[in-house]
């Protein structure tokens, strides 16, 4: 069993989770990395992901657990040789036992870039308030949702906003939050990147990168 951290940037950010799964399967096949298959009528590679990214959101901090006997260093090299520049493995480590990424993820860290938006004002006002409602479109219909409790931190710097938001169950979509911020505080969102995924209790959130050995090649 291996855990690896990977990027999903540029055009690859616009692939759906299903497209990403298929792309992984093909990368492994090209690379000659053997991943165990599930039993059953439609066998598929045993790959386990954290909660999927929204289409269009980039990431430099995705994680995946793969059921393979491959040696971590070889895995990283083979994977990257057979993948696209926008989908690269950053680090890889062996696991003693499987981590259920989807169930254990509690929060995600994002970096949003705006142009012409009063980002500092947005961060201060939202954090000072006990409630924050966002509007969005879901399945073609307008919807509203109270999300203040799902915003763990906001930090403005120039045109950028670093955000730690609930991820998993409950979940706050960073793209929806950013679009609401742009609608209220002017300007537009030009880039949105997930930088890390966190697990553990709210008072002690930790990055999944603790499972990647410090000596893992970068």
């Amino acid at each position: 069993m291996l855990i690896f951290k990977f990027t999903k940037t540029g055009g690859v950010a616009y692939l759906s989770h299903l497209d990403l799964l298929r792309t992984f399967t093909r990368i492994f096949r090209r690379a000659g990395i053997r991943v165990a298959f599930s039993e059953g009528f439609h066998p598929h590679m045993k790959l386990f992901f954290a909660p999927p990214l929204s289409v269009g959101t980039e990431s430099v901090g995705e994680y995946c657990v793969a059921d393979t006997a491959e040696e971590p260093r070889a895995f990283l090299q083979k994977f990257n040789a057979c993948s696209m520049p926008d989908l690269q493995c950053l680090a890889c480590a062996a696991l003693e036992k499987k981590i259920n990424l989807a169930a254990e993820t509690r929060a995600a860290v994002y970096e949003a870039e705006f142009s012409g938006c009063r980002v500092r004002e947005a961060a201060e006002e939202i954090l000072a308030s006990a409630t924050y409602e966002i509007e969005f479109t879901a399945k073609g219909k307008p919807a509203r949702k109270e999300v203040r409790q799902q915003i763990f931190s906001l930090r403005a710097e120039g045109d950028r906003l670093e955000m730690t938001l609930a991820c998993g169950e409950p979940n706050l979509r960073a793209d929806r939050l950013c679009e609401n911020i742009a609608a209220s505080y002017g300007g537009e969102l030009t880039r949105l990147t997930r930088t890390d995924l966190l697990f553990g209790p709210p008072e002690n959130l930790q990055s999944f990168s603790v499972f990647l050995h410090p000596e893992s090649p970068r």
Partner: protein
Amino acid sequence: MIPKRILDHVSKPARYLGGEYHTPSMDKPDALKVCLCFPDLYEVGMSNLGLRILYHLLNERPEFAAERCFAPWTDMQAALRENGLPLCSLETGRALKDFEVVGFSVQYELCYTNILMMLELGGIPLLAAERGEAFPPVIAGGPCALNCEPVADFFDLFMIGDGEEALPAVLSCYRETKAAGGSKADFLERAAGISGVYVPAFVRPKYDEGGALTGFDCKFPVEKAVVRDFDKAYFPTDPIVPSMEIVHNRGVVELFRGCSRGCRFCQAGFTYRPIRERSPQTLADQCEKLIRSTGFDEISLNSLSTGDYPGLKELLPKLRALQEKYQVSFALPSLRADSFEGEFADFARKSSLTFAPEAGTQRLRDVINKDITEEDVERCLTQAFSLGYSTVKLYFMLGLPTETEEDLRGIAAIVARARELFFKHRATKKELKISVSVSTFVPKPFTPFQWEAQNTREEVSRKQDLLCDLLRQRGVSLSWSDFETSQLEAVFARGDRKLSGVIAAAYRKGCVFDGWSECFRPGLWAEAFAECGLRPEDYTGARAHDEVFPWDFFDSRVKKSYLAGERDKAFEEKVTRDCRLGCHGCGASARGECEIAGHPRKSVEKSLC
């Protein structure tokens, strides 16, 4: 790169991004910049084998840099217009007008308005005559180039037949002409001499006072390009691997080009002749390279009738070895009737079975030369049902020449027989599902039925009603093509140059993606015809035996006299045997290029597709 604010709000943004695995480097400063355009969505165009072959063939050569551009869906068209952005290539984001040559792959008649949409969004004037030296030559190839007269005004040059040798020759000609300081006109003049090239400006159709075509002023002979050594012809074994789901998301090898069956309605069956085959060893090597380089888990063995490939017995064990080694599957699109007894069984395991009897009675199947008998269908269904199959797809055509009500009742009889066989032989608890698909016959150029009429609206609707009544049975679903779509296809298939005006007018009114039912606007097309003083009915009726056709100036290898003879045999209800059993002298083998002509076989397998 298209801005995030646009990408975030269009459907399937991955269509517009490129960057897939195996995208070749465009970093070739001295290369001729070519954009290969496909006038339909990314997921349709990326499934097209012709485009795949030509794209990689050009990019493997240092002197060419070929990029791709697909038709943007309506939401993206609107976004580009609103934001004043041009339609660009996927690889480097260059607008179409900034390429040195722009080429279109034209696969079906109902994409004509999309060509205009792509030219306009790409910043290129629609009419070739209005483009001058400032814009790249716009060229086209693909099945519709066979009768490209309806779109002749929009293109500088057409390429007819196999593109593997002709396209590099045309592009080299452009490079050399430009390097020598020549003009676009000089290029067209020189290129017109290349086999497979047709320059509409050099062929002037002549009409009599009544508007009937009487002949052509032809500056150059026009003939189809044919790749002679098909086994050694270029084939891409490291094609782009699309990241998003596309229509045919798998690797493809091509077993052979051409077809020996001679179904009289089928254009591909005549126009891809002469027949040329790849050797089993070449194909097995190509399959293995494809699997290793792409990671596809399925490889499709393509041709017009895969069961006819004589090397199948030699190829199958090789594929079985690859199947074991890489855990991949192989798809054989046209199934043989005896495949259930034979070696295909576990190769071709599918959830449903497809048959294409095309006509409901033996008499009509003889007319169209479709070599399937009721016994073939029954034997195969019996085997399939006893193996546990419960879903069957049946394909028929409506409006074939000489068709009567009895032939339509024959369709219902085949369906009834299939139900009977299912309940007699079923090996599953699943319910029977029979999907019957009935398309409307479209007479196509270069076929024995090129003189025939398409059924009128009244005839088609009466026949469709009858079939609806006959097939209202449990477990049977019927689908049919809508009349306006088939009619438009028929108009363009046998159309002439006068139709360019209708296409431009329809586009101006807002017609695009006419092949997509959610976009098709028959009312706007009717207005466009009326404005040009033309009627669709002028093109869909029967043609006189001695009529000059808009495509007559062009040599497709199969002789017009042979097609006329096949037509006579059709009305006598006489079949023409598979040409693997003996050459009928259609003309395709006149230069010794047909690989089966000199090697008659004693028997051929039955094909049900």
